[in-house]
Protein backbone atom coordinates (compact mmCIF):
# COMPACT_ATOMS: atom_id res chain seq x y z
CA UNK A 1 0.00 0.00 0.00
CA UNK A 2 2.66 2.48 1.07
CA UNK A 3 4.87 1.36 -1.78
CA UNK A 4 2.29 1.41 -4.52
CA UNK A 5 0.80 4.72 -3.52
CA UNK A 6 4.03 6.22 -2.26
CA UNK A 7 6.33 5.68 -5.22
CA UNK A 8 4.15 7.50 -7.76
CA UNK A 9 3.55 10.33 -5.31
CA UNK A 10 7.22 10.68 -4.54
CA UNK A 11 8.17 10.71 -8.21
CA UNK A 12 5.59 13.38 -8.99
CA UNK A 13 6.55 15.68 -6.15
CA UNK A 14 10.25 15.15 -6.64
CA UNK A 15 9.93 15.78 -10.38
CA UNK A 16 8.05 19.00 -9.85
CA UNK A 17 10.75 20.40 -7.59
CA UNK A 18 13.78 19.60 -9.74
CA UNK A 19 15.19 20.65 -13.09
CA UNK A 20 16.15 18.25 -15.86
CA UNK A 21 19.64 18.06 -14.36
CA UNK A 22 18.28 17.18 -10.95
CA UNK A 23 18.74 20.51 -9.20
CA UNK A 24 16.26 21.84 -6.72
CA UNK A 25 14.06 24.61 -8.08
CA UNK A 26 10.73 26.38 -7.68
CA UNK A 27 10.77 27.49 -11.31
CA UNK A 28 8.37 24.78 -12.46
CA UNK A 29 5.68 26.18 -10.22
CA UNK A 30 6.36 29.71 -11.37
CA UNK A 31 6.12 28.64 -14.98
CA UNK A 32 2.80 26.91 -14.65
CA UNK A 33 1.40 29.92 -12.79
CA UNK A 34 2.63 32.33 -15.46
CA UNK A 35 1.01 30.31 -18.22
CA UNK A 36 -2.44 31.66 -19.01
CA UNK A 37 -3.56 28.28 -20.29
CA UNK A 38 -2.80 26.45 -17.06
CA UNK A 39 -4.39 29.20 -14.98
CA UNK A 40 -7.54 28.90 -17.04
CA UNK A 41 -7.40 25.13 -16.58
CA UNK A 42 -7.26 25.53 -12.83
CA UNK A 43 -10.10 28.04 -12.84
CA UNK A 44 -12.26 25.79 -15.01
CA UNK A 45 -11.49 22.74 -12.91
CA UNK A 46 -12.33 24.48 -9.67
CA UNK A 47 -15.59 25.96 -10.95
CA UNK A 48 -16.67 22.70 -12.55
CA UNK A 49 -15.87 20.64 -9.44
CA UNK A 50 -17.49 23.17 -7.16
CA UNK A 51 -20.86 23.33 -8.83
CA UNK A 52 -21.12 19.67 -9.73
CA UNK A 53 -20.25 18.66 -6.17
CA UNK A 54 -22.76 21.04 -4.59
CA UNK A 55 -25.58 20.16 -6.99
CA UNK A 56 -24.69 16.47 -6.81
CA UNK A 57 -24.65 16.59 -3.02
CA UNK A 58 -28.04 18.26 -2.77
CA UNK A 59 -29.79 15.91 -5.16
CA UNK A 60 -27.92 12.91 -3.78
CA UNK A 61 -29.04 13.68 -0.24
CA UNK A 62 -32.57 14.29 -1.39
CA UNK A 63 -32.66 10.96 -3.21
CA UNK A 64 -31.00 9.12 -0.34
CA UNK A 65 -33.49 10.62 2.14
CA UNK A 66 -36.36 9.49 -0.05
CA UNK A 67 -34.92 5.98 -0.19
CA UNK A 68 -34.18 5.78 3.51
CA UNK A 69 -37.76 6.84 4.26
CA UNK A 70 -39.01 3.84 2.30
CA UNK A 71 -39.35 0.33 3.68
CA UNK A 72 -35.89 -1.13 4.44
CA UNK A 73 -35.01 -4.19 2.43
CA UNK A 74 -37.70 -3.22 -0.06
CA UNK A 75 -37.39 -3.27 -3.79
CA UNK A 76 -36.63 0.45 -3.95
CA UNK A 77 -33.77 0.10 -1.51
CA UNK A 78 -32.20 -2.68 -3.49
CA UNK A 79 -32.53 -1.00 -6.84
CA UNK A 80 -31.09 2.28 -5.61
CA UNK A 81 -28.24 0.68 -3.70
CA UNK A 82 -27.15 -1.57 -6.54
CA UNK A 83 -27.65 1.14 -9.14
CA UNK A 84 -25.63 3.63 -7.10
CA UNK A 85 -22.80 1.16 -6.76
CA UNK A 86 -22.72 0.65 -10.51
CA UNK A 87 -23.34 4.21 -11.67
CA UNK A 88 -20.82 5.81 -9.33
CA UNK A 89 -18.18 4.01 -11.40
CA UNK A 90 -19.89 4.68 -14.71
CA UNK A 91 -17.71 7.33 -16.24
CA UNK A 92 -15.44 7.94 -19.15
CA UNK A 93 -16.16 7.10 -22.71
CA UNK A 94 -19.32 5.00 -22.19
CA UNK A 95 -20.93 7.77 -20.15
CA UNK A 96 -19.96 10.37 -22.72
CA UNK A 97 -21.57 8.24 -25.44
CA UNK A 98 -24.72 7.80 -23.45
CA UNK A 99 -25.03 11.54 -23.09
CA UNK A 100 -24.24 12.22 -26.72
CA UNK A 101 -26.88 9.68 -27.69
CA UNK A 102 -29.36 11.51 -25.46
CA UNK A 103 -28.44 15.16 -25.68
CA UNK A 104 -26.11 15.47 -28.67
CA UNK A 105 -27.03 17.33 -31.87
CA UNK A 106 -29.17 14.42 -33.06
CA UNK A 107 -29.69 12.86 -29.65
CA UNK A 108 -32.95 11.29 -28.59
CA UNK A 109 -33.89 14.01 -26.12
CA UNK A 110 -32.82 16.84 -28.40
CA UNK A 111 -34.97 15.49 -31.21
CA UNK A 112 -37.88 14.86 -28.91
CA UNK A 113 -37.78 18.37 -27.47
CA UNK A 114 -37.66 19.79 -30.98
CA UNK A 115 -41.01 18.14 -31.65
CA UNK A 116 -42.41 20.19 -28.80
CA UNK A 117 -40.83 23.33 -30.18
CA UNK A 118 -37.94 23.55 -27.75
CA UNK A 119 -34.61 23.83 -29.50
CA UNK A 120 -31.87 23.23 -26.94
CA UNK A 121 -29.10 24.14 -29.29
CA UNK A 122 -30.70 27.44 -30.29
CA UNK A 123 -30.28 28.58 -26.71
CA UNK A 124 -26.55 28.05 -26.77
CA UNK A 125 -26.48 24.65 -25.07
CA UNK A 126 -23.95 22.16 -26.36
CA UNK A 127 -22.93 18.90 -24.83
CA UNK A 128 -19.28 19.89 -25.09
CA UNK A 129 -19.68 23.11 -23.14
CA UNK A 130 -18.80 23.27 -19.48
CA UNK A 131 -22.52 23.00 -18.68
CA UNK A 132 -22.80 19.83 -20.74
CA UNK A 133 -19.72 18.31 -19.14
CA UNK A 134 -21.03 19.27 -15.72
CA UNK A 135 -24.33 17.56 -16.46
CA UNK A 136 -22.41 14.35 -17.20
CA UNK A 137 -20.46 14.71 -13.97
CA UNK A 138 -23.72 14.97 -12.04
CA UNK A 139 -24.51 11.54 -13.44
CA UNK A 140 -21.83 9.91 -11.31
CA UNK A 141 -21.77 12.49 -8.52
CA UNK A 142 -25.35 11.82 -7.40
CA UNK A 143 -24.89 8.03 -6.97
CA UNK A 144 -21.64 8.57 -5.09
CA UNK A 145 -23.43 11.00 -2.79
CA UNK A 146 -26.18 8.44 -2.19
CA UNK A 147 -23.54 5.89 -1.21
CA UNK A 148 -21.72 8.29 1.09
CA UNK A 149 -24.68 9.91 2.83
CA UNK A 150 -26.98 6.90 3.33
CA UNK A 151 -25.21 5.64 6.48
CA UNK A 152 -25.52 9.10 8.03
CA UNK A 153 -29.21 9.30 7.18
CA UNK A 154 -29.79 5.83 8.59
CA UNK A 155 -28.01 6.98 11.74
CA UNK A 156 -30.74 9.55 12.33
CA UNK A 157 -32.74 7.69 14.95
CA UNK A 158 -36.48 7.85 14.75
CA UNK A 159 -36.45 8.19 18.55
CA UNK A 160 -34.98 11.64 18.12
CA UNK A 161 -37.83 12.69 15.90
CA UNK A 162 -40.39 11.24 18.28
CA UNK A 163 -38.72 12.93 21.23
CA UNK A 164 -38.67 16.28 19.47
CA UNK A 165 -42.28 15.99 18.39
CA UNK A 166 -43.39 14.89 21.84
CA UNK A 167 -41.64 17.86 23.33
CA UNK A 168 -43.79 20.02 21.11
CA UNK A 169 -41.48 20.70 18.20
CA UNK A 170 -43.02 21.17 14.80
CA UNK A 171 -41.88 19.02 11.88
CA UNK A 172 -39.88 21.96 10.61
CA UNK A 173 -38.47 22.61 14.06
CA UNK A 174 -37.21 19.03 14.18
CA UNK A 175 -35.46 19.43 10.86
CA UNK A 176 -34.06 22.83 11.79
CA UNK A 177 -32.77 22.02 15.27
CA UNK A 178 -32.06 18.29 15.21
CA UNK A 179 -31.70 16.70 11.80
CA UNK A 180 -29.74 19.43 10.03
CA UNK A 181 -27.14 20.02 12.77
CA UNK A 182 -26.54 16.28 13.13
CA UNK A 183 -26.25 15.71 9.40
CA UNK A 184 -24.32 18.82 8.47
CA UNK A 185 -20.80 17.49 9.14
CA UNK A 186 -21.50 14.31 7.15
CA UNK A 187 -23.03 16.37 4.38
CA UNK A 188 -20.08 18.73 4.15
CA UNK A 189 -17.65 15.82 4.35
CA UNK A 190 -19.36 13.94 1.55
CA UNK A 191 -19.51 17.11 -0.54
CA UNK A 192 -15.77 17.51 -0.14
CA UNK A 193 -15.26 13.95 -1.39
CA UNK A 194 -17.45 14.72 -4.39
CA UNK A 195 -15.34 17.79 -5.02
CA UNK A 196 -12.17 15.73 -5.02
CA UNK A 197 -13.82 13.16 -7.25
CA UNK A 198 -14.85 15.77 -9.83
CA UNK A 199 -11.50 17.50 -9.57
CA UNK A 200 -9.61 14.38 -10.57
CA UNK A 201 -12.06 13.03 -13.14
CA UNK A 202 -11.40 13.81 -16.74
CA UNK A 203 -11.93 10.80 -18.97
CA UNK A 204 -15.59 11.75 -19.46
CA UNK A 205 -14.81 15.34 -20.27
CA UNK A 206 -12.03 14.33 -22.61
CA UNK A 207 -14.37 12.07 -24.55
CA UNK A 208 -16.99 14.80 -24.82
CA UNK A 209 -14.82 17.74 -25.70
CA UNK A 210 -11.60 16.38 -27.13
CA UNK A 211 -8.08 17.53 -26.40
CA UNK A 212 -8.92 21.24 -26.46
CA UNK A 213 -10.46 20.79 -23.05
CA UNK A 214 -8.85 23.03 -20.45
CA UNK A 215 -9.18 21.34 -17.10
CA UNK A 216 -6.15 20.34 -15.06
CA UNK A 217 -6.13 16.53 -15.34
CA UNK A 218 -6.59 16.74 -19.10
CA UNK A 219 -3.66 19.14 -19.27
CA UNK A 220 -1.52 16.67 -17.37
CA UNK A 221 -2.52 13.94 -19.77
CA UNK A 222 -1.65 16.23 -22.66
CA UNK A 223 1.68 17.20 -21.21
CA UNK A 224 2.69 13.60 -20.54
CA UNK A 225 1.56 12.28 -23.87
CA UNK A 226 3.80 14.83 -25.55
CA UNK A 227 1.12 16.63 -27.47
CA UNK A 228 2.75 19.91 -26.50
CA UNK A 229 6.18 21.43 -26.18
CA UNK A 230 9.39 19.74 -25.08
CA UNK A 231 9.95 19.82 -21.34
CA UNK A 232 6.24 19.51 -20.76
CA UNK A 233 6.92 16.47 -18.61
CA UNK A 234 7.95 18.80 -15.82
CA UNK A 235 4.86 20.91 -16.34
CA UNK A 236 2.76 17.76 -16.08
CA UNK A 237 4.42 16.71 -12.84
CA UNK A 238 4.13 20.22 -11.43
CA UNK A 239 0.44 20.36 -12.25
CA UNK A 240 0.17 16.99 -10.53
CA UNK A 241 1.76 18.37 -7.38
CA UNK A 242 -0.52 21.40 -7.49
CA UNK A 243 -3.50 19.08 -7.74
CA UNK A 244 -2.22 17.15 -4.76
CA UNK A 245 -2.01 20.41 -2.79
CA UNK A 246 -5.61 21.31 -3.61
CA UNK A 247 -6.73 17.81 -2.68
CA UNK A 248 -4.72 17.94 0.52
CA UNK A 249 -6.59 21.08 1.59
CA UNK A 250 -9.86 19.34 0.82
CA UNK A 251 -8.79 16.30 2.84
CA UNK A 252 -7.87 18.34 5.89
CA UNK A 253 -11.31 19.94 5.72
CA UNK A 254 -12.83 16.49 5.39
CA UNK A 255 -10.93 15.17 8.37
CA UNK A 256 -12.06 18.10 10.52
CA UNK A 257 -15.76 17.72 9.72
CA UNK A 258 -15.52 13.95 9.99
CA UNK A 259 -14.42 14.24 13.58
CA UNK A 260 -17.57 16.17 14.34
CA UNK A 261 -19.73 13.78 12.33
CA UNK A 262 -18.58 10.71 14.21
CA UNK A 263 -19.86 12.10 17.47
CA UNK A 264 -23.42 11.21 16.60
CA UNK A 265 -23.10 8.27 14.27
CA UNK A 266 -21.92 5.49 16.48
Amino acid at each position, binding site marked *: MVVFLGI*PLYVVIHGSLTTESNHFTWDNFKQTWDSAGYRLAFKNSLILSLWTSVVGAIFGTWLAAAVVAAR*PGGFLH*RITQSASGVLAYFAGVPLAFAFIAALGQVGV*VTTLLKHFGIDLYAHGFTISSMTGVGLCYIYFQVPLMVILITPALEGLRSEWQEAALNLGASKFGYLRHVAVPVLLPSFVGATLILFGNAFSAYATALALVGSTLTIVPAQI*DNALNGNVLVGADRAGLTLGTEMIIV*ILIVMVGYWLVQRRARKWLR
Partner: protein
Amino acid sequence: MSAVNPGMDEIGEGSLARELIGGEPPAYVAARRRRGRPRMWRVVIFVLAAIFFIVPLAAAFKYSLQQDKGGYGFANYGEIIHNPTVRSPLVTSLEIAVISAAIVIVLMLPTVVWVRLKKPQATGFMELVTLLPIVIPPVVMAAGLEQFEVNAPPWTIKYVFDHPLTGLTPFYVVLAMPFTYRAIDTGVRAIDLHTLVDASRNLGASWPSTLARVVLPNVQTAVLGAMFLTVALCLGEVVIATLLLYNTFPVEMINLSKASQVGVSVALSMLTLAFTFLLLFLLSFLAQRRGSGRRVGVL
Protein backbone atom coordinates in the same frame (compact mmCIF):
# COMPACT_ATOMS: atom_id res chain seq x y z
CA MET B 1 -37.57 4.96 8.72
CA SER B 2 -38.72 3.71 12.01
CA ALA B 3 -36.53 0.88 13.16
CA VAL B 4 -38.90 0.07 15.98
CA ASN B 5 -41.73 -1.36 13.95
CA PRO B 6 -40.69 -1.81 10.34
CA GLY B 7 -43.54 -2.27 7.95
CA MET B 8 -46.16 -1.02 10.37
CA ASP B 9 -46.88 2.18 8.54
CA GLU B 10 -47.85 0.20 5.47
CA ILE B 11 -51.08 -0.84 7.10
CA GLY B 12 -52.30 2.56 8.14
CA GLU B 13 -51.14 2.55 11.72
CA GLY B 14 -52.12 6.22 12.00
CA SER B 15 -55.80 5.76 11.41
CA LEU B 16 -55.87 2.82 13.77
CA ALA B 17 -54.26 4.88 16.48
CA ARG B 18 -56.76 7.66 15.92
CA GLU B 19 -59.67 5.29 16.37
CA LEU B 20 -58.18 3.94 19.57
CA ILE B 21 -57.40 7.31 21.07
CA GLY B 22 -60.47 9.07 19.76
CA GLY B 23 -60.41 12.69 18.64
CA GLU B 24 -57.41 14.45 17.15
CA PRO B 25 -54.22 12.39 17.01
CA PRO B 26 -51.16 13.85 18.72
CA ALA B 27 -48.47 15.28 16.46
CA TYR B 28 -46.23 12.23 16.50
CA VAL B 29 -48.98 9.94 15.32
CA ALA B 30 -49.74 12.37 12.54
CA ALA B 31 -46.08 12.31 11.55
CA ARG B 32 -46.09 8.52 11.49
CA ARG B 33 -49.20 8.34 9.41
CA ARG B 34 -47.94 10.75 6.83
CA ARG B 35 -44.87 8.63 6.41
CA GLY B 36 -46.95 5.74 5.16
CA ARG B 37 -48.12 7.34 1.97
CA PRO B 38 -45.53 8.35 -0.57
CA ARG B 39 -45.25 12.06 -0.11
CA MET B 40 -44.74 14.79 -2.63
CA TRP B 41 -41.04 15.44 -2.05
CA ARG B 42 -40.26 11.75 -2.39
CA VAL B 43 -42.27 11.28 -5.55
CA VAL B 44 -40.65 14.33 -7.14
CA ILE B 45 -37.10 13.14 -6.54
CA PHE B 46 -37.83 9.60 -7.68
CA VAL B 47 -39.34 10.81 -10.92
CA LEU B 48 -36.48 13.26 -11.50
CA ALA B 49 -33.87 10.63 -10.72
CA ALA B 50 -35.57 8.02 -12.88
CA ILE B 51 -35.67 10.40 -15.85
CA PHE B 52 -32.15 11.66 -15.36
CA PHE B 53 -30.58 8.25 -14.92
CA ILE B 54 -32.59 6.14 -17.31
CA VAL B 55 -32.85 8.42 -20.33
CA PRO B 56 -29.14 8.49 -21.26
CA LEU B 57 -28.92 4.73 -20.75
CA ALA B 58 -31.97 4.15 -22.89
CA ALA B 59 -30.57 6.43 -25.58
CA ALA B 60 -27.29 4.52 -25.53
CA PHE B 61 -29.12 1.20 -25.68
CA LYS B 62 -31.17 2.36 -28.64
CA TYR B 63 -27.97 3.44 -30.34
CA SER B 64 -26.34 0.06 -29.75
CA LEU B 65 -29.26 -1.65 -31.46
CA GLN B 66 -28.92 0.39 -34.63
CA GLN B 67 -27.36 -1.54 -37.47
CA ASP B 68 -25.18 -0.39 -40.32
CA LYS B 69 -27.74 -1.23 -42.92
CA GLY B 70 -30.47 0.54 -41.05
CA GLY B 71 -33.11 -1.00 -38.89
CA TYR B 72 -32.59 -2.44 -35.45
CA GLY B 73 -31.07 -5.71 -34.28
CA PHE B 74 -28.49 -7.37 -32.15
CA ALA B 75 -25.65 -7.34 -34.70
CA ASN B 76 -23.41 -5.26 -32.44
CA TYR B 77 -23.82 -7.71 -29.62
CA GLY B 78 -23.03 -10.64 -31.90
CA GLU B 79 -19.87 -8.88 -32.95
CA ILE B 80 -18.58 -9.01 -29.37
CA ILE B 81 -18.57 -12.79 -29.30
CA HIS B 82 -17.07 -13.25 -32.74
CA ASN B 83 -14.38 -10.60 -32.65
CA PRO B 84 -11.09 -11.87 -31.15
CA THR B 85 -9.66 -8.37 -30.65
CA VAL B 86 -12.46 -7.79 -28.19
CA ARG B 87 -12.12 -11.13 -26.47
CA SER B 88 -8.46 -11.13 -25.46
CA PRO B 89 -8.49 -7.79 -23.57
CA LEU B 90 -11.69 -8.93 -21.92
CA VAL B 91 -9.92 -12.05 -20.67
CA THR B 92 -7.00 -9.95 -19.43
CA SER B 93 -9.34 -7.63 -17.56
CA LEU B 94 -11.26 -10.49 -16.03
CA GLU B 95 -8.00 -12.08 -14.87
CA ILE B 96 -6.93 -8.80 -13.29
CA ALA B 97 -10.36 -8.46 -11.69
CA VAL B 98 -10.33 -11.94 -10.15
CA ILE B 99 -6.76 -11.70 -8.86
CA SER B 100 -7.36 -8.21 -7.44
CA ALA B 101 -10.51 -9.35 -5.71
CA ALA B 102 -8.65 -12.29 -4.13
CA ILE B 103 -5.77 -10.07 -2.97
CA VAL B 104 -8.23 -7.56 -1.54
CA ILE B 105 -9.80 -10.20 0.67
CA VAL B 106 -6.54 -11.75 1.78
CA LEU B 107 -5.15 -8.32 2.69
CA MET B 108 -8.15 -6.40 3.95
CA LEU B 109 -9.95 -8.93 6.13
CA PRO B 110 -7.02 -9.55 8.52
CA THR B 111 -6.28 -5.81 8.58
CA VAL B 112 -9.84 -4.88 9.49
CA VAL B 113 -10.06 -7.59 12.14
CA TRP B 114 -6.70 -6.60 13.58
CA VAL B 115 -7.66 -2.92 13.75
CA ARG B 116 -11.01 -3.73 15.33
CA LEU B 117 -9.58 -6.10 17.92
CA LYS B 118 -6.20 -4.75 18.83
CA LYS B 119 -5.97 -1.18 17.67
CA PRO B 120 -9.38 0.48 17.90
CA GLN B 121 -7.67 3.83 18.37
CA ALA B 122 -6.30 3.52 14.84
CA THR B 123 -9.78 3.48 13.31
CA GLY B 124 -9.80 7.16 12.43
CA PHE B 125 -6.34 6.93 10.96
CA MET B 126 -7.32 3.91 8.85
CA GLU B 127 -10.35 5.72 7.53
CA LEU B 128 -8.24 8.65 6.49
CA VAL B 129 -5.61 6.47 4.84
CA THR B 130 -8.14 4.40 2.97
CA LEU B 131 -9.69 7.58 1.59
CA LEU B 132 -6.45 8.69 0.00
CA PRO B 133 -6.86 6.63 -3.19
CA ILE B 134 -10.19 8.32 -3.92
CA VAL B 135 -8.73 11.73 -3.73
CA ILE B 136 -5.30 11.27 -5.24
CA PRO B 137 -6.13 11.74 -8.88
CA PRO B 138 -5.46 8.57 -10.89
CA VAL B 139 -3.87 10.72 -13.53
CA VAL B 140 -1.31 11.91 -10.99
CA MET B 141 -0.66 8.34 -9.94
CA ALA B 142 -0.22 7.32 -13.56
CA ALA B 143 2.06 10.30 -14.18
CA GLY B 144 4.29 9.27 -11.31
CA LEU B 145 4.39 5.68 -12.47
CA GLU B 146 5.24 6.65 -16.00
CA GLN B 147 8.18 8.71 -14.78
CA PHE B 148 9.22 5.90 -12.48
CA GLU B 149 9.22 3.41 -15.32
CA VAL B 150 11.64 5.56 -17.32
CA ASN B 151 14.37 5.25 -14.69
CA ALA B 152 13.25 2.04 -13.06
CA PRO B 153 15.73 -0.78 -12.44
CA PRO B 154 15.43 -3.41 -15.17
CA TRP B 155 14.19 -6.18 -12.93
CA THR B 156 11.06 -4.22 -12.03
CA ILE B 157 10.32 -3.76 -15.72
CA LYS B 158 10.83 -7.45 -16.37
CA TYR B 159 8.83 -8.76 -13.44
CA VAL B 160 6.27 -6.02 -12.85
CA PHE B 161 5.57 -3.66 -15.70
CA ASP B 162 5.95 -6.02 -18.65
CA HIS B 163 2.58 -7.61 -18.26
CA PRO B 164 -0.74 -5.94 -17.45
CA LEU B 165 -1.46 -8.60 -14.83
CA THR B 166 1.50 -7.72 -12.65
CA GLY B 167 1.65 -4.10 -13.72
CA LEU B 168 -1.93 -3.14 -12.97
CA THR B 169 -3.22 -5.48 -10.29
CA PRO B 170 -1.37 -3.90 -7.33
CA PHE B 171 -2.62 -0.46 -8.27
CA TYR B 172 -6.17 -1.60 -8.71
CA VAL B 173 -6.03 -3.21 -5.29
CA VAL B 174 -4.95 0.13 -3.85
CA LEU B 175 -7.54 2.04 -5.86
CA ALA B 176 -10.33 -0.24 -4.69
CA MET B 177 -9.28 0.04 -1.07
CA PRO B 178 -11.54 2.94 -0.02
CA PHE B 179 -14.63 0.96 -0.94
CA THR B 180 -13.42 -2.46 0.08
CA TYR B 181 -12.21 -1.28 3.46
CA ARG B 182 -15.55 0.35 4.20
CA ALA B 183 -17.58 -2.62 3.00
CA ILE B 184 -15.63 -5.11 5.10
CA ASP B 185 -15.52 -2.77 8.09
CA THR B 186 -19.30 -2.40 8.05
CA GLY B 187 -19.64 -6.17 7.96
CA VAL B 188 -17.19 -6.80 10.78
CA ARG B 189 -18.78 -4.10 12.92
CA ALA B 190 -22.13 -5.86 12.66
CA ILE B 191 -20.91 -9.13 14.20
CA ASP B 192 -19.72 -9.80 17.72
CA LEU B 193 -16.12 -10.10 16.72
CA HIS B 194 -14.61 -10.29 20.21
CA THR B 195 -16.73 -13.21 21.34
CA LEU B 196 -16.30 -15.13 18.11
CA VAL B 197 -12.54 -14.74 18.02
CA ASP B 198 -12.12 -15.49 21.75
CA ALA B 199 -14.22 -18.61 21.46
CA SER B 200 -12.36 -19.84 18.45
CA ARG B 201 -8.93 -19.13 19.97
CA ASN B 202 -9.91 -20.81 23.23
CA LEU B 203 -10.91 -23.91 21.35
CA GLY B 204 -7.42 -24.05 19.97
CA ALA B 205 -7.78 -22.60 16.49
CA SER B 206 -4.84 -20.76 15.00
CA TRP B 207 -5.23 -17.19 13.76
CA PRO B 208 -5.43 -18.11 10.05
CA SER B 209 -7.95 -20.82 10.82
CA THR B 210 -10.02 -18.42 12.95
CA LEU B 211 -10.09 -15.88 10.16
CA ALA B 212 -10.92 -18.33 7.41
CA ARG B 213 -13.39 -20.56 9.24
CA VAL B 214 -15.01 -18.32 11.83
CA VAL B 215 -14.83 -14.69 10.78
CA LEU B 216 -15.07 -15.11 7.02
CA PRO B 217 -18.35 -17.06 6.95
CA ASN B 218 -19.89 -14.47 9.25
CA VAL B 219 -19.05 -11.52 7.07
CA GLN B 220 -19.66 -13.36 3.81
CA THR B 221 -21.90 -10.75 2.25
CA ALA B 222 -19.67 -7.82 3.13
CA VAL B 223 -16.72 -9.67 1.64
CA LEU B 224 -18.68 -10.51 -1.50
CA GLY B 225 -19.66 -6.86 -1.77
CA ALA B 226 -16.05 -5.80 -1.54
CA MET B 227 -15.12 -8.32 -4.23
CA PHE B 228 -17.83 -7.17 -6.60
CA LEU B 229 -16.84 -3.56 -6.17
CA THR B 230 -13.27 -4.49 -6.97
CA VAL B 231 -14.41 -6.32 -10.08
CA ALA B 232 -16.49 -3.31 -11.14
CA LEU B 233 -13.50 -1.06 -10.72
CA CYS B 234 -11.18 -3.34 -12.66
CA LEU B 235 -13.64 -3.55 -15.53
CA GLY B 236 -13.96 0.22 -15.70
CA GLU B 237 -10.60 1.77 -14.97
CA VAL B 238 -9.04 3.44 -18.01
CA VAL B 239 -6.82 6.29 -16.90
CA ILE B 240 -3.87 4.31 -15.56
CA ALA B 241 -4.22 1.57 -18.14
CA THR B 242 -4.16 4.03 -21.05
CA LEU B 243 -1.31 6.15 -19.78
CA LEU B 244 0.82 3.07 -19.15
CA LEU B 245 -0.15 1.65 -22.54
CA TYR B 246 -1.76 -1.58 -21.39
CA ASN B 247 -4.48 -3.04 -23.53
CA THR B 248 -7.26 -3.91 -21.12
CA PHE B 249 -10.95 -4.24 -21.77
CA PRO B 250 -12.01 -0.63 -21.09
CA VAL B 251 -9.10 0.62 -23.17
CA GLU B 252 -10.20 -1.65 -26.00
CA MET B 253 -13.66 -0.17 -25.70
CA ILE B 254 -12.23 3.27 -26.43
CA ASN B 255 -10.13 1.93 -29.29
CA LEU B 256 -13.22 0.39 -30.83
CA SER B 257 -15.06 3.67 -30.68
CA LYS B 258 -12.15 5.38 -32.39
CA ALA B 259 -12.10 2.71 -35.07
CA SER B 260 -15.63 3.65 -36.08
CA GLN B 261 -17.14 0.68 -34.32
CA VAL B 262 -19.00 2.91 -31.93
CA GLY B 263 -22.00 0.60 -31.92
CA VAL B 264 -19.95 -2.35 -30.66
CA SER B 265 -18.31 -0.17 -28.06
CA VAL B 266 -21.64 1.07 -26.74
CA ALA B 267 -23.02 -2.46 -26.77
CA LEU B 268 -20.06 -3.59 -24.69
CA SER B 269 -20.52 -0.85 -22.15
CA MET B 270 -24.21 -1.74 -21.87
CA LEU B 271 -23.31 -5.36 -21.21
CA THR B 272 -20.76 -4.42 -18.57
CA LEU B 273 -23.25 -2.17 -16.82
CA ALA B 274 -25.95 -4.81 -16.83
CA PHE B 275 -23.48 -7.43 -15.59
CA THR B 276 -22.25 -5.37 -12.63
CA PHE B 277 -25.74 -4.23 -11.77
CA LEU B 278 -26.94 -7.80 -11.66
CA LEU B 279 -24.03 -8.82 -9.44
CA LEU B 280 -24.81 -6.11 -6.90
CA PHE B 281 -28.54 -6.69 -7.13
CA LEU B 282 -28.18 -10.41 -6.44
CA LEU B 283 -25.86 -9.58 -3.59
CA SER B 284 -28.53 -7.44 -1.96
CA PHE B 285 -30.83 -10.49 -1.78
CA LEU B 286 -28.05 -12.56 -0.28
CA ALA B 287 -27.43 -9.82 2.26
CA GLN B 288 -31.03 -9.91 3.33
CA ARG B 289 -31.27 -13.66 3.62
CA ARG B 290 -28.32 -13.71 5.99
CA GLY B 291 -28.87 -10.41 7.70
CA SER B 292 -30.82 -11.14 10.82
CA GLY B 293 -31.10 -8.17 13.09
CA ARG B 294 -28.72 -5.56 11.86
CA ARG B 295 -28.69 -5.03 8.14
CA VAL B 296 -25.34 -5.22 6.41
CA GLY B 297 -25.08 -2.72 3.61
CA VAL B 298 -22.86 -3.25 0.65
CA LEU B 299 -21.24 0.08 1.35
